[in-house]
């Protein structure tokens, strides 16, 4: 196929603006799927995505489109996630594209991630076609949406294509506009192979399956390929494109977005952003890869059962193939044993990683409280960064502690500006400025400590704005702050996995919150258990778990001793889910509660 007839594009937008639904309509218009097999948000293939109704992974699909004006086209469409925590998915998808459909929900208008995604597309020099979605809804306000597209996105509202991804209205016109608006890929099939790895996943039978965009050259079965960053070589066993399932092809040519299978069993060898070339006639320069991900939050991840450490390790490597934004390194806790310190792009990301590990690899896990990265200057002048409260040096040796601040953008209807101002100042934020998007809505800019955002800012923002405010942020700089480490002591013993770093002004409240929660979770013992929160040697909050006064079973009837013995055996099983802190049994949930605090 002539490159002139290929279009590679992503659908990008704020969360829930209808990307995956629009993808459904486009897939239908290209007749890829038998009408009987259609379902909503077809590209959200993971169980977690379907249960939560959000896209987590970018998904690629190759479509054949017959233009109304004649001509056969190939569309390589990538549906992307909208949530901030998965921005890295979007930016990698964009590397495989020449243009984007930037969707705006006409019932909501431009939102924080609409703006963030626009910038990503601009950075990649992509053609940006604005699409106004959900015009079927009565409350849709196309005019205000156009105003937002012009004022806050700086795009020409006359280009905007109105559609309803739900009813399909306008989709036929949109497909024709894609052909006109988005440029075809460039590339030279006689040049040396250059293919960018933008995603991958692990398959039990085939090993790593890599997703590539071919820039130059061609690749086919039997070729020996080389990963330019490692120099490792593999023989290609299969190439193809993504339809609903994988579809084998003879070869991949420039402009193609497809997959390569080459018996890559060692998952550590595959690096997202690496360039694939041919071993016998390699390209001289690799393509520019991706910016390194900057994890925002860190937490400990431990197997519930210590025997599972190796399984967890293996699972993390395999999951990383499919989630390039996950980083991890071995870690070790006094309370929880061997595990990993992981870096995530946000709390949702953290939750999803844990859930995928548990589901896809059948593991039971314990996560510790999330922390951001702090920069610490010691009295000797030595500077260190820590993302684990346990690593915090003794305060007497510390000259300065700095915490990360972010530039935050909040888009909100004007009605909630007052509430938001209050929330921001409660969270140590600094107001920068405010711009009108349209008559009803504004864009607010703040500087906020990342630690507060990680904590529960987002949920609060949603609740004080009845879900209308949207939020985006990026790391700005480090600023000196009066941070302290709070330790939690159970029966006099500090539990390292429960320590956290917090601003001194909030330490007492947070410490109290946590021990109050622990009080409900740690079962009563035969003795009294004091719970304390402490900064160094000074106790800032305390509670007691009073001893059990009654733990006795009434009766077993008719000599059914078996049932009673089985209960004891079950109790022993249950104990495996407890962590022993001194003479106290602490249930694993205790380590999670610290995550969930109002």
């Amino acid at each position, binding site marked *: 196929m002539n490159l002139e007839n290929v279009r590679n594009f992503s659908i990008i937008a704020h969360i829930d603006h209808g990307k995956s639904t629009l993808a459904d309509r486009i897939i239908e218009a290209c007749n890829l799927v038998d009408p009987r097999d259609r379902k909503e948000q077809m590209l959200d293939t993971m169980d977690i995505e379907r249960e939560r109704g959000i896209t987590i992974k970018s998904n690629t699909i190759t479509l054949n489109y017959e233009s109304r004006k004649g001509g056969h086209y190939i569309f390589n469409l990538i549906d992307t996630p909208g949530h901030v925590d998965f921005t890295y998915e979007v930016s990698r998808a964009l590397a495989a594209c020449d243009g984007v459909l930037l969707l705006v929900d006409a019932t909501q208008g431009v939102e924080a991630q609409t703006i963030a995604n626009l910038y990503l597309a601009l950075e990649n020099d992509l053609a940006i076609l604005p699409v106004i979605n959900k015009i079927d809804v009565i409350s849709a306000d196309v005019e205000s949406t156009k105003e937002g597209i012009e004022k806050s996105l700086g795009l020409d509202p006359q280009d905007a294509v109105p559609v309803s991804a739900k009813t399909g209205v306008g989709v036929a016109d949109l497909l024709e506009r894609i052909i006109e608006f988005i440029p075809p890929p460039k590339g030279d099939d006689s040049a040396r192979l250059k293919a960018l790895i933008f995603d991958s996943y692990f398959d039990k039978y085939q090993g790593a399956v890599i997703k590539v965009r071919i820039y130059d050259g061609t690749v086919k079965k039997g070729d020996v390929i080389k990963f330019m960053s490692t120099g490792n070589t593999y023989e290609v066993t299969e190439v193809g494109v993504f339809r609903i399932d994988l579809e084998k092809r003879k070869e991949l040519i420039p402009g193609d977005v497809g997959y390569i299978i080459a018996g890559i069993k060692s998952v550590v060898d595959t690096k997202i952003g690496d360039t694939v070339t041919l071993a016998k006639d390699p390209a001289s320069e690799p393509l520019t890869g991706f910016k390194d991900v900057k994890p925002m939050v860190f937490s400990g991840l431990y197997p519930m059962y210590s025997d599972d450490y190796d399984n967890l390790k293996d699972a993390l490597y395999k999951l990383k193939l499919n989630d390039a934004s996950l980083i991890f390194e071995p870690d070790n806790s006094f309370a929880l044993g061997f595990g990993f310190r992981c870096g995530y792009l946000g709390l949702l990301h953290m939750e999803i990683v844990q859930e995928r590990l548990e589901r896809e690899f059948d593991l039971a896990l314990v996560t510790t409280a999330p922390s951001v990265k702090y920069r610490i200057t010691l009295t000797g002048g030595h500077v260190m960064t820590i993302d684990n409260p346990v690593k915090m040096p003794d305060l007497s040796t510390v000259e300065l502690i700095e915490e990360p601040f972010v530039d935050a953008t909040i888009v909100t209807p004007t009605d909630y500006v007052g509430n938001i101002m209050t929330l921001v100042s409660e969270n140590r934020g600094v107001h920068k400025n405010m711009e009108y998007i349209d008559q009803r809505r504004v864009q607010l800019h703040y500087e906020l400590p990342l630690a507060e955002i990680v904590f529960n800012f987002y949920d609060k923002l949603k609740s004080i704005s009845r879900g209308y405010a949207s939020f985006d942020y990026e790391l700005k700089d480090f600023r000196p702050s009066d941070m302290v480490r709070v330790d939690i002591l159970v029966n006099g013993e500090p539990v390292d996995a429960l320590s956290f770093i917090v601003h001194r002004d909030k330490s007492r409240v947070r410490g109290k919150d946590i021990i109050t929660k622990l009080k409900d979770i740690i079962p009563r013992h*035969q003795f009294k258990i004091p719970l304390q929160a402490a900064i160094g040697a000074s106790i800032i909050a305390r509670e007691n778990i009073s001893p*059990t006064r009654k733990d*006795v*079973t*009434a009766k*077993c009837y*008719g*000599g059914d001793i078996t049932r009673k013995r089985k209960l*004891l055996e079950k109790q022993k099983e249950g104990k495996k889910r407890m962590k022993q802190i001194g003479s106290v049994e602490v249930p694993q949930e205790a380590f999670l509660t610290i995550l969930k605090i109002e």
Partner: protein
Amino acid sequence: MKLGVYIHVPFCRRKCDYCSFYSVPVDTLSPEGRAGLEAYTRTIISEASMRLPQLPGAVIDTVYFGGGTPSMLEPRQVENVLSSLRGWADVEPGAEVTIEVNPEDSGKVSAFRDAGASRAVLGIQTFDPGMHRAIGRSSSLCGDDHLDSFFSVKGIVHCADMIAGIPGQDRAGLVAGLDRLCSLGAKHLSVYLLSIEKSTPLASRMKPGPGAGEEQRALFEAVMDFLAGRGFSHYEISNFAIPGFESRHNMKYWKFMPYLGLGPGAHSFIDGRRIMNVTGAVEYACSGGFSYEEDVRGKNSAAVEYLMTGLRLLEGVSVGDMESRAGFRLTPGMLARIDSLEKRGLVAVSGTGVDMTVRLSREGIFLSDGVIYEIVEELL
């Protein structure tokens, strides 16, 4: 071999809200209900005829009709079952024959006695109408008439079952009830702490509050103190008796002695093996009373069971007895734990070597689940 025989009667007129046991509702007034109980009795007799001959030399010294609601049986049916036992094994002349009786059946007690029963256990649970409603007890509230007809029967040992620790239960009322039973001549009282079992109707409407444990304990301590003053010995966690009137049958469960269970879901313990009959009443009837499986236990199970049941007896367990009955000697690890429990005042230890005895202290009674677990943990 001395043998206890347990006859399980898994029928009730209506299910109690707190009950998590398997039982089948039967209407004794309907012809179908009566025919069902008749068929059930025949199956019990056929099961006895198959299983007793496999135990040559067995001498039955206790028989216990438990349930469910065994007092729904006709005295004639009880008599038939007992005579079939005599047909297939020796029954000691002074054998203890117990039957559980619900208040509405108290008029049948003299007939049960004539049929061969020597003990009757009245399932009162509570005298307080409010508590009776609160726990959803299905049988009649025990009133003066019931008490009269029950205690007026001579030539039988009168026993009763009570429940303590119902949320909101009044201590004085509970003790007054026990007082009345003592005065009427009860020789054996079982007082169970109410436990709210998962997935019972009670569990859906009653959640124990944070102070529930304390409250139950206070009630039970009042019961212990009162009954001690009335000359009862507290011989098992939930059981009190005038000395000499302890339940010999139940003692077999706690002391690792053999028993044969007949009826749906009945358990047997013979030659160190545990056998469970099929639970369902219909499956049981269809199998002609001959469908059971063995609980195949690990090598430490005998020791676990011995300690788990033996420690419930307040006389405690003796190392020598454990060695001879369960073939097990306490490990150094277990001895260390017993030592630590003693230091914490939860058990009392006396004697040394094979004469060593371990028993629950007063505090230990209330924490017995944890104490027992701690001792046997390494065997699980």
